[in-house]
């Protein structure tokens, strides 16, 4: 589980505030916010280009681990 979040930062332009990107930033958000977003992408409730296809690959536990890791990044 510890490894999971490591593969994520490239997905949504999350790596640095310095990068110019139209993608929503996901660093330093509350875990609950990320969990809700990922679950909404997964169910299709929230529309997306690519995030829905990616979110479908992760369980609730995995999404929680990702959210906690991302929230800790600065």
């Amino acid at each position, binding site marked *: *589980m*510890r*490894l*999971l979040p*490591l*593969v*994520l*930062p*490239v*997905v949504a*332009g*999350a*790596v*640095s505030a*310095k*990068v*110019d*990107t*139209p*993608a929503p930033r996901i660093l330093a958000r509350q875990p609950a916010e990320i969990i809700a977003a990922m679950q909404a992408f997964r169910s299709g409730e929230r529309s997306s*280009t*690519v995030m829905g*296809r*990616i*979110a*479908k*690959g*992760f369980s609730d536990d*995995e999404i929680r681990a990702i959210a906690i890791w991302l929230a800790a990044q600065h």
Partner: protein
Amino acid sequence: MRTTRRAFLRGSAATASVALLAAPALAQAKARVVVVGGGFAGVTCARALQRAEPRAAVTLVEENPNYTACPFSNSVISGLRDIAAQRFGDDAFHAEGIVVLHDRAKAVDPQRRLVSLSGDTALGYDRLVLAPGINIRWGALPGYDEAAAELMPHAWKAGEQTLLLRRQLEAMADGGTLVISAPANPFRCPPGPYERASLIAYYLKTKKPRSKLILLDAKDSFSKQRLFQAAWQQLYPGLLEWVSLSNGGKVTKVDPATRTLVTDFATYKADVANVIPPQRAGHIAEIAGVADQTGWCPIDPVTFESRLQPGIHVIGDAAIAGAMPKSAFAANAQAKVCAAALAALLRDETPSSPKLINTCYSLVAPDYGISIAGVYHPVNGQLTDVEGAGGVSPGGAPPDFRALEAAYAEAWFRTITAETFG
């Protein structure tokens, strides 16, 4: 294959190395990890490992002081982008405690755990990571050798070859014929030949509309095929012709002097020819004995440790990564998984089973992007698609959706290069 901590430290103390001397001195012997290859895989792995395990002595060996990235090099060929936007230096990660050696890895001795560099230098390692990318399989396509590539560029390693193809395209008269040949699987960047054909077609449509582009293919199907073909029908009708394997698309021979490509069915005389040839893992993989008879490197999907040589890990395009394509995104993801596994192994812990993501964007036109995504996990020793996840952009999406994906494609490139090299 597990290394106990004691064996690991014993190995560390047994042989001195440049890495050990150049790294900040500590009282205890530091675990030495050598990474060969300064592309998306190698640099990401070296930096992720240094962050995950600051006590490790990480040395990165890369011959070139600058890296020229392949993603978006098709935009350079078609005049939409400057090659300078593809070039990245190593300033940022020099400062992180990684020893960077601009040198060539000549040989690997897996038994003594040594990498030989030019001259008499040799680096000892406890773990070696090879991220050598691809090599062209010269001679696999009769007539296509290094001299032929100066006349019929492959442009499948970004740099001078990219610029050569761009110059040839710019010099071609309106009404000329450009021929691309695409290889059989597996090869670097599965959607790459089709993005290239698209962007060259865009250039021809806007600058030299009487010209013709023929894409000869050694395959009957390819990545994002329906999306590409629908876009070609819409944007480049009559300009871009794809010839599948079944329709005689497999090139069996080339003659660089006359820029001729030969198939079993026909002979194509090109004004500009782009031969994307068969490939294999980078040369050092072969030398180190981690490549199998296919030319690529079988690995354990949890640690990316070679199935042929214990202690050597292979990541990026060189690896046989199951369902994962050979892409910069995949290389970056594999590098992080490998770094986390190495950090665990150095602490004598068991690496956790990973999940990896890939997304490959392609531009069909500057404002028309499409993507394919996947999520992968190890199943029975192979990286396998997570069922129900991944897939391609929707068919029949409106222009603003395609424009958004084109913008995301560019943002992805800025993000991954900032993360890797910035």
